[in-house]
């Protein structure tokens, strides 16, 4: 499945160096500033997705500045000298007027800005992304306007008890590592962060050598690389080392519990088990285990909990992050069921895997589901870009292209072993949402 192109494509622009290729994705780097460029030319509709992933997320924030990554993401749309509302060239208006689907997102390990648009307008997207890479204004008045917008966004999240539950569980599970705080930030930090603080954050992390540009869709490789070199090539590289997160989360040595009480109807349980970094092979095994536990009606937790009327829905999610994260089991309680019964059922189900392992049929089914999912995820440029984005955030874009090979390595014994290693009662943080109505 994976291969390396032995010879680089010919006639590359002078500033573009070919690095490697894997499963159709070509990796280049701009020699002038270190910007990494990933290209995946596809047949299909004449549209393309351009995405800049900055290798900065809420994990990079310090106390008092939580939410800075997300707030900066909002400010990046407020404009530059060339693209600004007062000139009639706001970034949203300029891009949406050519039919682009445009947005951005912030997460624990990365921030990404993307445009999906008719291929003929790809140079416009590149021009805007290059311009705001170092040219964002971060105007004080804009910061104040956006502060209330973000506080409203936070309030929306707080309306949802499940969102609160997630924040509480992650907050309790991580006492030292910055996955502790929510990506949107603590309310007091959102209220107090200054334009200068945001500018400093921008000047620390927003540089071409701390970013990856991905282009997926129907486009001409040579023309596109020339456009990339033209728009991004003159931006200087970071004048300093990009700061790295050095904090390590201390070993958890016992279960932790949190409770969210809020008006509502049905309770919920979230169990988060400390899990390995995304690039470790055990993370692939945990993906398979998540499927076996909670994907579809054949899954163990569906049969044990939902089919028996204990839960109305149950999910297994392996959060693959750059640093150790949480393997999570989430359950909505069925009406008239209590939290303890559901927790016990989940523990029993996990214990069965730990003691008796899984069947080959379960492993094959999980792998088939993941393989089909990968094929589905190649349906359209935006889907591919989203997957690449998460692989980049995890630390290696080839996690996306090599995933099928990695899955082939997973055995039934591996699944039993990781269940024993990671899904232990000493590594778990359990959150309960208790409706108060």
């Amino acid at each position, binding site marked *: 499945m994976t291969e390396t192109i032995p010879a680089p494509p010919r006639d590359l622009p002078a500033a573009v160096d070919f690095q490697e290729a894997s499963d159709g994705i070509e990796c280049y780097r701009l020699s002038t500033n270190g910007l990494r460029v990933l290209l995946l030319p596809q047949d299909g509709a004449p549209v393309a997705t351009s995405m800049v992933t900055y290798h900065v997320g809420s994990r990079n924030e310090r106390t008092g500045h939580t939410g800075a990554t997300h707030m900066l993401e909002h400010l990046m749309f407020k404009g530059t000298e060339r693209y600004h*509302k007062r000139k009639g060239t706001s970034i949203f208006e300029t891009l949406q007027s050519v039919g682009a689907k445009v947005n951005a997102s912030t997460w624990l390990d990365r921030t990404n800005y993307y445009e999906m648009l008719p291929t003929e307008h790809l140079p416009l997207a590149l021009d805007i992304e290059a311009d705001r890479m170092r040219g964002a204004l971060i105007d004080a008045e804009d910061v104040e306007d956006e502060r209330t917008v973000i506080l409203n966004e936070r309030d929306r999240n*707080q*309306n949802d008890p499940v969102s609160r539950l997630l924040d509480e569980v992650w907050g309790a599970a991580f006492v030292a590592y910055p996955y502790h705080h929510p990506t949107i930030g603590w309310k007091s930090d959102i209220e107090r962060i200054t334009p200068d603080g945001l500018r400093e954050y921008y000047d620390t992390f927003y540089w071409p050598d701390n970013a990856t540009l991905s282009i997926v869709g129907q486009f001409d490789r040579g023309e596109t690389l020339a456009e990339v070199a033209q728009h991004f090539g003159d931006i200087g590289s970071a004048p300093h080392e990009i700061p790295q997160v050095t904090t390590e989360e201390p070993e958890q040595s016992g279960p932790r519990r949190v409770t969210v009480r809020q008006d509502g109807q049905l309770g919920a349980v979230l169990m988060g088990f400390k899990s390995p970094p995304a690039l470790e092979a055990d993370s692939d095994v945990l993906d398979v285990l998540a499927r076996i536990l909670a994907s579809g009606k054949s899954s163990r937790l569906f049969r044990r909990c939902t089919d028996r009327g204990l839960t109305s829905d149950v999910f297994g999610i392996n959060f693959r992050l750059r640093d150790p994260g949480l393997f999570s089991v989430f359950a909505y309680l069925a009406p008239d069921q209590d939290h303890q019964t559901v927790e016990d059922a989940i523990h029993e189900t996990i214990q069965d895997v730990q003691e008796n392992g899984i069947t080959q049929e379960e492993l094959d089914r999980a792998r*088939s*589901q993941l393989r089909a999912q990968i094929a589905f995820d190649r*349906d*359209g440029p935006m889907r591919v870009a989203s997957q690449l984005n998460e692989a980049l955030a995890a630390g290696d874009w080839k996690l996306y292209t090599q995933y099928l090979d990695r899955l082939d390595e997973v055995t039934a014994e591996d699944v039993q072993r990781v269940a024993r290693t990671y899904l232990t009662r000493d590594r778990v943080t359990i959150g309960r949402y208790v409706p108060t109505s």
Partner: protein
Amino acid sequence: MSDSSSPSNASPSLAPRIQDRTVGPGRLLTLRTSVDDVVSFRGSFVTHPDFAAGDALRQQLTVSLLDKGTEHRDRFELARVLEACGATLDLSSDGLFVEMSGRALVDDLPRVMAVAAEMLRAPAFDPEEFRKARAQVAADLQRRMEKTSAQASTALSQRLFPEGHPNYSPAPETVLEWLQGLTVQDVRDYHEAHFGSNEWTLAAVGDLRHDAVASVVSETFTGWAPHDAPAVHDPNAASAEVGRTTVPMPDKSNVDVRLGHAVPIRRDHDDYPAFYVGNYILGGNFAARLMSTVRDEMGLTYSIRSSLSGVSTRHVGSWQTSVTLSHDAVDEGIAATTDVIREFVAEGATAEELDAKKTTITGSYSVGLATTERLAQSILTNAERGFDVSYLDGFPEEIRALTLDEVNAAIRDYLDPEAIQEALAGTRPSPVEATAGA
């Protein structure tokens, strides 16, 4: 895969590449694209529910039981077929229609279609599964009751439409009460009376061979008979006095607000495209007036947009603005939103705005058709509306041909600030009584 027609990417035209034929009791539309291995499909048939008699709930419950076992296989056997190949199959209730949709690797399409047909045509309706499905629907309703957005939308729908209209949503508390009174026999009766091949249409898009899909569909759906239920839904809006409904919900940081009124035209009315574009200029995207003013300039909200909602060729729908506001910004936010709407109706759109939104709409239309899923959905929706396949290519032309006079006339004719109804859900700093009329 080989085929008589190879996928073409040079031209965005869809209609010449879509094969449209009658297969078994229905219509099959297939489109081959350059994606590898994947086929997305979407199909629907008309059920003619009696909304005023609570059929929306009967239909929802019936649909939720389709994958819980058939006359030939139990629920786990059905699930195993799909899960062993990673395919997805969703059955859903959507007003006048029941829809099925999903994705599969192309080689697995025959077994997925066989499962789909079996679920639709020969469900078992086991009493024990009925009991579980009813509990599941109750849980879904209770979760919905927690959401300010759902409560606000429900409240607005009740101000705009009569109970027999497909866009009317009963209060979740009422639905929960109805739910407890339903029996498995009600579900069997509903399936018997409302499930059949009436207007059965299936769109399939992806790495497919047209003839191969046709023979699979023929094999699985031939012999499916139509039902006799007549169309009884109320196609028109209610004529309620202008006013506000407030749904008090404790413990919420954010208030969801819906402003809107019914629109007297249907999707196939000549003025629809002009009004669609007019609304888009007002609140269709981030660069539209509402977002640009209320969020971008005033910082009052995270999200505000306006849309034409539930407008069909079979019934009228509504124009709505949705805005989320923090406690302390509710009054200011509603006032600012209303000001933008009033100014827009009074002064109309500008030529620059129209030009910009024409390219936005036509560009995003082509961008939106970049996946097999979206293509299948668009082809099916077009067919449900009774439009010719050529309209899939004709829509952008229709938008480009609109004049500023046509758009502004449509705004004046169909957007009335004096007729706006309001619905709010959430926690207010000081309680506001729910009002029926004013």
